[in-house]
């Protein structure tokens, strides 16, 4: 019964979305207020109905209703409750429902918080957002309906892929979708502004929080996924340049570019058409990501069981939205006149450089991801483009970005002298070079990745410190002024420092990982780097829905025991799948990562040990970036900007923002 209610709610939501797509758009064109006013309650209703549908599906998973085909395929009664719940979106149909739920959630939020928007713009934004929802509702109902029943319900389910039964991964998709779909809001604003034919500073201010939120969610989602890959897949890699990973990374890069260029629109009324284009492309890359995952066009470790029909649907959705938006863009972009004037050397130019580097690096990832397809279709070559290519072709852009970031971020608006702006940074630059040089001198190899990474990390973090000190000005009470800085400034500082920490972590891990593979006998110690390991025993253990072989190891350094490590080799009988559970001793300096393999003929066990320096810096840096975004999001400017009256008042107080 609950299932049927959910199914019914889904279809109702689809119908409401159609109304919300058409009526407010006509209303905005004709200036009929009653028609425009339809959008707000419709957005709320759409969200409520979709939430009911999603809740019904989740309920079916929670009570293990195997009469539902989807639940039977992806769940099992013995599965822990957390994974029953996360199983709701651990499959194609359910994840599409989550996707559309988030589309409607953002639509509803725009309706609730958008009371300060001009009525026509608001009606159009909600109509465009609803058009996206319509496309995906149709996709779900006609090709991937999660509510289909089985004639004879089986006794038990087929279990969720054991690799996905993990707390890190349980929350990876929701965050990623919040990010992907959050960009739909920027897209809707861009298209609405094109229809409206008007982009001004206020538009930049409205778009930025949505982009910022999407970027924060994407950051968290990507970091969770990468962390999961690190501890779950069993060889300690954190990023594989897999098509699906790239699919989430490209929107992240463009969202980062977009939230910087929107600053220029907001503060200086320039870069308007570029910002609109970025908003369209960022969501476009989200759709490309969905397409790559669902169509099976590119082979990937992540792809769901995919079928071509669904791929064609998503391709059509993508062609419609991208094609439509880009046509609209070419028709209207010319009418967007830039107002701000600025010199070649200025904060504006620095932000343009940021955008160039981010957009071009996104382009490199895109070309690399699609190249196997292009080469096969046009040049008759079946080839692979793997991590070595991306590491070589992508990394230089990030190095450049890290190099110019601290200088760009202290550059004054409008007109600047590069030397004068960068002068306060001279000491930290020398210090950062020294850090890199020290790393070079201390390492055993001659690689440059590690030293460059540490240099960039030090440069970015110390650059942020100098910038913050500068912001306090001169004279007494500098500490007080520091604490009173707007949250947006703190957000910027924290996020930039986070980027530095992540860069250093990635470089350190890539450059200085040590590994050791051996057959270990019980109670015979061996050493890896400065550490000593002993395999004490190997036990058979039983989990809720798996059996495991668990090694018990002692990790010690200079004869002092540091930790007990318990790597497992699990077997999930229902899914007939083995997995490895690495044992990791986490530390800020390094992780010790141990994996147990098979027993050998001589009674010993295969043990892989890795010493992975600075790994946790990657996630700490990601967390800082997300935190920076959240701080910025909580800035007074965005909160106050909600009401039209409040905004007008603020503009009077702060004429700088309206220049």
């Amino acid at each position, binding site marked *: 019964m609950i299932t049927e209610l959910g199914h019914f709610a889904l279809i109702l939501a689809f119908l409401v979305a159609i109304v919300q797509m058409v009526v407010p758009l006509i209303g905005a064109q004709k200036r009929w207020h009653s028609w425009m006013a339809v959008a707000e309650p419709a957005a709320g209703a759409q969200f409520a109905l979709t939430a009911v549908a999603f809740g019904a599906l989740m309920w079916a998973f929670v009570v293990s209703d195997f009469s539902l085909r989807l639940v039977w395929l992806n769940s099992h009664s013995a599965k822990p409750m957390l994974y029953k719940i996360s199983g709701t979106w651990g499959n194609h149909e359910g994840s599409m429902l989550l996707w559309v739920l988030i589309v409607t959630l953002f639509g509803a939020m725009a309706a609730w918080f958008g009371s300060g928007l001009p009525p026509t713009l608001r009606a159009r934004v909600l109509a465009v957002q609803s058009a996206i929802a319509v496309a995906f509702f149709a996709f779900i109902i006609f090709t991937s309906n999660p509510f289909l029943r089985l004639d004879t319900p089986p006794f038990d389910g087929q279990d969720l892929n054991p690799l996905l039964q993990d707390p890190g991964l349980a929350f990876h998709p929701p965050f990623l979708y919040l990010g992907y779909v959050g960009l739909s809001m920027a897209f809707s604003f861009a298209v609405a502004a094109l229809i409206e034919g008007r982009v001004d500073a206020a538009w930049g201010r409205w778009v930025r929080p949505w982009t910022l939120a999407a970027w924060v969610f994407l950051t968290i989602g990507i970091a969770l996924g990468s962390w999961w890959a690190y501890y779950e897949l069993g060889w300690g890699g954190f990023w594989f340049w897999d098509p699906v990973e790239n699919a989430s990374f490209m929107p992240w890069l463009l969202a980062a570019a977009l939230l910087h260029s929107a600053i220029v629109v907001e503060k200086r009324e320039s870069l308007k058409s570029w910002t609109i284009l970025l908003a369209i492309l960022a969501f476009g890359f989200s759709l490309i990501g969905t397409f790559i995952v669902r169509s099976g066009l590119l082979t990937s470790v992540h792809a769901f069981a995919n079928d071509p029909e669904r791929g064609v649907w998503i391709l059509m959705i993508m062609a419609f939205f991208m094609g439509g938006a880009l046509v609209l863009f070419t028709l209207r972009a010319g009418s967007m006149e830039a107002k701000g004037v600025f010199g070649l050397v200025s904060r504006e130019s620095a932000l343009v450089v940021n955008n160039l580097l981010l957009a071009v690096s996104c382009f490199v990832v895109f070309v690399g991801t699609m190249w196997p397809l292009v080469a096969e279709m046009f040049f008759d070559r079946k080839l692979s483009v*793997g991590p070595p290519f991306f590491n070589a072709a992508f990394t230089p852009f990030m190095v450049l970005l890290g190099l110019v970031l601290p200088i760009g971020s202290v550059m004054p608006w409008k007109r600047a002298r590069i030397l004068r702006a960068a002068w306060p940074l001279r000491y930290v630059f020398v210090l950062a070079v020294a850090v890199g040089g020290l790393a070079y001198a201390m390492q055993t190899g001659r690689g440059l990745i590690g030293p460059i990474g540490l240099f960039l990390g030090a440069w970015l973090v110390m650059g942020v410190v100098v910038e913050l000190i500068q912001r306090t000005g001169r004279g007494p009470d500098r500490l007080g002024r520091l604490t009173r800085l707007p949250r947006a400034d703190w957000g910027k500082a924290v996020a930039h420092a986070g980027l530095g920490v992540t860069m250093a972590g990635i470089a350190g891990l890539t450059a200085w990982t040590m590994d050791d593979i051996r057959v270990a006998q019980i109670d015979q110690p061996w050493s890896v780097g400065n550490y000593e390991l002993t395999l004490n025993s190997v036990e058979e253990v039983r989990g809720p829905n798996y059996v495991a072989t668990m090694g018990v190891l002692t990790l010690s350094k200079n004869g002092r025991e540091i930790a007990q490590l318990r790597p497992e080799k699990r077997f999930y009988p229902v899914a007939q799948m083995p997995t490895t559970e690495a044992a990791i001793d986490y530390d800020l300096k390094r992780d010790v990562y141990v994996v147990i393999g098979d027993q050998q003929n001589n009674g010993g066990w295969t043990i892989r040990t890795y010493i992975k320096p600075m790994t946790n810096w990657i996630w700490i840096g990601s967390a800082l970036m997300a935190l920076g975004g959240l701080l910025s999001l909580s800035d007074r400017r965005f909160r106050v900007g909600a009401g039209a009256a409040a905004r007008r008042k603020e503009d009077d107080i702060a004429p700088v923002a309206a220049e």
Partner: protein
Amino acid sequence: MKRLALILLLLATPLMAVQPDEMLDDPVLENRARELSKGLRCLVCQNESIDESHASLARDLRILVRDRLVEGDTDEEAVAFIVARYGEFVLLNPTVSGANWLLWGAGPLMLLLASGVGMIYLRGRSKATAPGEEPLSDQERARLDDILRQ
């Protein structure tokens, strides 16, 4: 006994990438083999190098690479040997040849193009005058200088 060992070996589901029994005794050769393996794709997997893969085909390839190195092949010869048998698809790092120039050149070319367009835009912005904002007349400028000098 040897036969039994072989059967046991085949029955065991290999859960780890490189196995201790594959490894070469010479650490220099082993290191080279590991580096080469990282650049070779496991053909039956999805985007994994043979160094990371648990598949038995990847194991065969790893052993093949090591055999070639023991035979005295250089790194290039060993890779060429694998490519001759399994095709270009096995290379995770695409070669810079033929149409692949487009792949490798895409980034730098795009950066060049984008920098050009960006430069033109920035020059335009720095020369433009904001609407409703006239440049200072000579008189105004002289007066401004006076004020600033005080």
